[in-house]
């Protein structure tokens, strides 16, 4: 008696070749499965399927791309030739393009499935794409005939170890007969949100695994399709509650002196909130100036380019260029445009992972808010993003601009206070014909701190927290200054001059 070692019924996965999508699928498609890829014309189905084929053959597989529609292969190849995944050398040995239009016309679905089966076998195809399922569905005399077609295709796919993708633009609202049969359904969408186009992908059905549910942002660029799993869906588990053991210097000795642990708590998130010009970015530069090869820094900014930041730092005596040359600091600037909020989140986390970032400045939070098509997501988005940063041991300083230039009331938008560990509040105050900058620490999650209102001085030697601010008679009461006799500093001896 012979036993063939096929006793491990673990379903093998097949990479989609589409960055981000395997994460949504929990590791890729299941080998030998049959999947429907649904989307209206222009939603990216053809690029999706071609990218999958080219990436698959680049990894050593063999693919067959079968069309049932009128578009000629040469025309389709012309269109995808410009995309970076295209590799002419892969055609026709590893990737073959065939038209099955004639077989469908003459032999119906039986003729079509026979052709697909023969091609799978003859070419040892590990991926098969059938572009134009809608044409096959129109040829079916009944739902049961179409179901039989899908069933026979599934049987062949299993025997040949081939994963099949059926592309269709039929109505997604209707429950189609073939939808009940296949192993998974993916839907591509390209919708308008006000004037902005919003591409997304949704896994509507996925047998055998838990895909990340809901819609995920998608971009089609020179490299093809990229998917950005929703940050709050991907990182929805809160990290284990870890009390920080130490702190990272804020880069401002006079600020560290106000905080019992001597800086921002390790792996904490600090939001510096204030109106334009109050010095938020300078707080960030001071923090990054303490980066080192052992404690790499990252500026993830939206509003000031790297040359401007370097010049700004230089003007207050900070040398960023040397840190950059040492590989201790990265300045990543995202000029304002039509970003996707999840794309930004993933870019940030990729940079953090690549550079081993410990000191992070996001300048500012509104760069993310402006990228959000669904504003109601941003609170949960940031909460999950900062949790993930904490899990990765990153200490983050995030600037947040308020609209009120001078005033005592500042609201923290988008649930900021819920996810932030530490909050620094910057504002202007008019006193005796001068405008002064003030700072107060309003929250430190894991440390005692001096809650007093302090003057902030920015000069050639950097940013310095000066003594307590004492109100004059003509001050706009934005700072709610303390009385002259109050000078206690909880948890820490000494008071900066």
């Amino acid at each position, binding site marked *: *008696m012979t036993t063939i070692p096929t006793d491990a019924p673990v379903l093998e996965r097949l990479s989609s070749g589409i960055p981000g999508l395997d994460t949504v699928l929990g590791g890729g498609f299941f080998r030998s499965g049959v999947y429907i890829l649904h989307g209206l014309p222009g939603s990216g189905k053809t690029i999706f399927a071609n990218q999958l084929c080219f990436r698959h053959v680049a990894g050593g597989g063999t693919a067959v791309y079968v069309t049932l529609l009128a578009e000629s292969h040469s025309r389709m190849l012309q269109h995808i030739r410009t995309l970076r995944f295209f590799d002419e050398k892969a055609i026709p040995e590893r990737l073959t393009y065939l038209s099955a239009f004639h077989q469908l016309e003459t032999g119906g679905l039986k003729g079509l499935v026979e052709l697909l089966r023969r091609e799978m076998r003859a070419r040892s195809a590990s991926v098969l794409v059938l572009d134009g399922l809608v044409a096959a569905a129109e040829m079916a005399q009944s739902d049961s005939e179409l179901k039989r077609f899908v069933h026979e295709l599934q049987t062949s796919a299993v*025997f040949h170890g081939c994963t099949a993708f059926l592309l269709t633009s039929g109505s997604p609202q209707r429950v189609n007969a073939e939808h009940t049969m296949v192993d998974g359904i993916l839907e591509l969408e390209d919708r308008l949100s006000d004037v902005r186009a919003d591409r997304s992908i949704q896994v509507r059905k996925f047998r055998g695994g838990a895909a990340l549910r809901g819609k995920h942002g998608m971009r089609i660029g020179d490299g093809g399709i990229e998917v950005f799993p929703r940050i709050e869906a991907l990182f929805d588990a809160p990290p284990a509650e870890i009390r920080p053991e130490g702190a990272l210097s804020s880069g401002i000795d006079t600020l560290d002196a106000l905080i019992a642990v001597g800086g921002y708590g390790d792996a904490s998130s600090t939001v510096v909130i204030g109106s334009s010009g109050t010095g938020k970015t300078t707080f960030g530069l001071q923090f990054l100036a303490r980066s080192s090869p052992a404690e790499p820094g990252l500026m993830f900014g939206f509003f000031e380019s790297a040359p401007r930041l370097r010049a700004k730092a230089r003007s207050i005596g900070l040398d960023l260029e040397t840190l950059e040359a040492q590989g201790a600091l990265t300045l990543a600037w995202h000029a304002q445009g039509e970003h996707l909020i999840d794309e930004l989140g993933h870019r940030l986390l990729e940079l953090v992972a690549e550079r081993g970032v410990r000191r992070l400045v996001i300048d500012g939070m509104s760069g993310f808010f402006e990228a959000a098509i669904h504003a109601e997501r941003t609170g949960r988005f940031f909460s999950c993003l900062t949790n993930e940063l904490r899990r990765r041991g990153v200490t983050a300083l995030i600037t947040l601009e308020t609209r009120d230039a001078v005033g005592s009331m500042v609201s923290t938008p988008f649930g900021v206070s819920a996810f932030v560990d530490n909050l620094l509040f910057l504002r202007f105050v008019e006193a005796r014909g001068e405008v002064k900058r003030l700072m107060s620490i309003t929250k430190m999650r894991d440390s005692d701190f001096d809650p007093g209102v302090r003057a902030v001085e920015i000069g050639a030697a950097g940013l310095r927290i000066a003594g307590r601010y004492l109100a004059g008679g003509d001050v706009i009461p934005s700072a709610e200054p303390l009385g002259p006799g109050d000078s206690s500093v909880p948890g820490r001896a000494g008071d900066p001059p």
Partner: protein
Amino acid sequence: MKTILVVDDELANADLLCLLLEEEGYRAHSAVNGRQGLERLTDVRPQLVILDYMMPVMNGAEMGRAMRASDATRGIRILMNSSLPEEAVRKQFSGYDAFLRKPYGIDEALRVIARLLG
């Protein structure tokens, strides 16, 4: 030409397997359960039976035991296959010559078949 009988209640499976076997130069027939399989043995006279385990009317274990109990069919090779682990099948019937766990690839199946009929 060697003759193979495929006994499987999943028709698409049986039909496709027959088609593939014929392309490989075998003569192939099918039956949808163990009882029909036993009936076909006399007219088909196969050298190999590819036998599914879970089937209605008469399952693969029952057919296998019946084949081994009869002088006329005792010598026919049996390739048992099932989506269940082999241990579960072997408890019911252990008189087969080879076992394949479903789903299996056709190339693997053809290698086993060639060896059993070699």
